[in-house]
């Protein structure tokens, strides 16, 4: 074999490898996406079509009564529209407040000197080790004692005190910002909170948005919290609305799948518009463990 032959056979081999790689990745993408195609067609045709044997892979008669019903009728006393607004109402305040509280604490841990700093910091980090299973029952009892059951408060208040993972990451992040910036601001007479909002927050905006998005998505998709604490249908969030409106009947596939789509759509839209932040946020939330 000449040198040219060797190079040629290497490129051919490379091309074969590339093709195989793309095939495998496409198959996996297909396996992930196919179920969403099935719910989409099941939502957009009458249930009878979905109960056809063998299964129909296309829509014979286009029909949106499932969506119409979800937006206009209460199903078992549950309104999806109200549940959607409930969810926003319960999730946005703790997301915003919790994010600010965590970032401010992370700023203090990284740039300020105060007594007990390290003890407090490592104490907070240890909270990440406490398994949620252990605190579940006493936390419920505490909220019960406060008469907070069947109110959204148990879902909202804890998050407002910030999260150890976010604090830990923000501390690392702020450490990378030169202290001279802060010293200059101090000479200008700025207080620490103002320094945070005027200098630190804008510099860390992309990370803060990523954390905020992940925390919003987590709250939006939370099922266990609302299941534990909310009993009145008019207080339901979207996730338990979906659970109780679908499992209650069970035989109306069109309605069930329409409800699935309505529940997933808000996050899906956010994901499409803020992909960049999501990818970053997913990597960051991994750090939280």
């Amino acid at each position, binding site marked *: 074999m000449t040198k040219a032959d060797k190079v040629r056979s290497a490129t051919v081999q490379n091309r074969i490898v590339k093709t195989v*790689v*793309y095939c*495998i*990745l496409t198959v996996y*993408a297909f*396996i*992930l*996406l196919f*179920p*969403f195609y*099935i719910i989409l067609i099941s939502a957009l045709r009458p249930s009878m079509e979905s109960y056809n*044997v*063998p*299964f129909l892979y296309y829509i014979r008669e286009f029909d949106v009564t499932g969506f119409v019903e979800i937006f206009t009728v209460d199903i078992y006393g549950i309104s999806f529209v109200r549940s959607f607004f409930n969810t926003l109402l319960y999730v946005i305040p703790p997301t915003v407040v919790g994010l600010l*509280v965590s970032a401010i*604490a992370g*700023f*203090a841990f990284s740039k300020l000197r*105060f*007594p007990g*700093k390290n003890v407090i910091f490592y*104490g*907070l980090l240890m*909270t990440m*080790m406490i*398994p949620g*299973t*252990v*605190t579940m*029952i*006493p936390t*419920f009892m*505490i909220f*019960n*004692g406060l008469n907070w059951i069947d109110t959204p408060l148990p879902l909202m208040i*804890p998050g*407002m*005190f*910030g999260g150890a993972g976010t604090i830990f990451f923000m501390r690392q992040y702020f450490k990378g910002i030169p202290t001279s910036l802060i010293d200059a601001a101090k000479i200008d007479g700025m*207080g*620490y*909170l103002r320094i945070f909002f005027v200098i630190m927050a804008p510099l860390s905006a992309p990370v803060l948005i990523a954390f905020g998005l992940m925390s919003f*998505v987590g709250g*939006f*998709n939370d*099922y*266990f919290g609302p299941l534990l604490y909310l009993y009145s249908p008019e207080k339901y969030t979207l*996730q338990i609305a*979906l*659970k109780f409106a679908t*499992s209650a009947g069970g035989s109306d596939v069109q309605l069930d*799948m329409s409800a*699935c*789509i309505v*529940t997933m759509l808000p*996050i899906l839209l956010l*994901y499409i518009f803020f992909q960049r932040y*999501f990818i970053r946020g*997913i*990597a960051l939330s991994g750090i939280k463990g």
Partner: protein
Amino acid sequence: MRGEHIAGLLMVSPPVIGFLMFGLIPICISFALSFVRLNSYDISRSQFVGLSNFSFIFEDERFWRSIKNTLLYSLSMPVTLILSLGVAVLLEKIRVFKKLFRVIYFLPYILSGVAVSTMWKWMLDTNYGIVNDILVALGAGRVEWLTSEAYFMLTMILISIWGGMCMNIVFFMSALANVNDELYEAAEIDGAGRFTKFFKITLPLISPTTFYLLITGFIGVLQTFVNFQIMGGDNGGPNEAGLTVVFYLYNMAFRDTISYGMGYASATAWVLGVFIILLTVGNFILSKRWVYSDD
């Protein structure tokens, strides 16, 4: 200086208060509860019973079944880990459409678990679901994925693999990107092939990531409950085939409060909690021996 001290303490006080209220105090109450009998949510009605909650659960056949189920479910983790490493390696090899693939692969992670479960319930329906339809078309019989005791756990494992790779892929991709290219070049000069390079260079170098994912994954699996409750109903699937440990203690605390109550449930939570903490600490120490690390 004084001002800085006060400002610092004030700025970190909200999370500290939160930690006390939702971390330290609950964990102390939980510890105390595991030694009492309490069939309501009113702590003042507790009766001290010593270690009898623990001896009860250790003799309870359902407790051991829930442990068995949970461990069985944890088999999903190594499979997920290996497959996601594979996907990450392949994604690192391409440039065109890389972003598109990544966006698709992250979908199950950000979408509602309830919606995804509802979707699978429909697809796995014994008579009309698409999965059985495909099996029938291939000449196989219909499988009772969610209604037979024999298949329920396998179904849950498969669904978990389907939707559980996202985070692992992200971590493996960043670990792979951090492997020094010079090592590969040096190995190529020594005549190493693809597989030698992967097993002798890549795998050892990404071992801290693998290890981290293994531990956090296992801790997550040990506390699984919600997806089993959605897919299997309040009793944990056919013949309790999906009764996990947290499911077991959740039912004792919140559904069978009168016959079991907070004491048994807290004792179970502590058995699991101690196991999780030991696992975290123990594996952390062990990891220093077999995980490659730069420092």
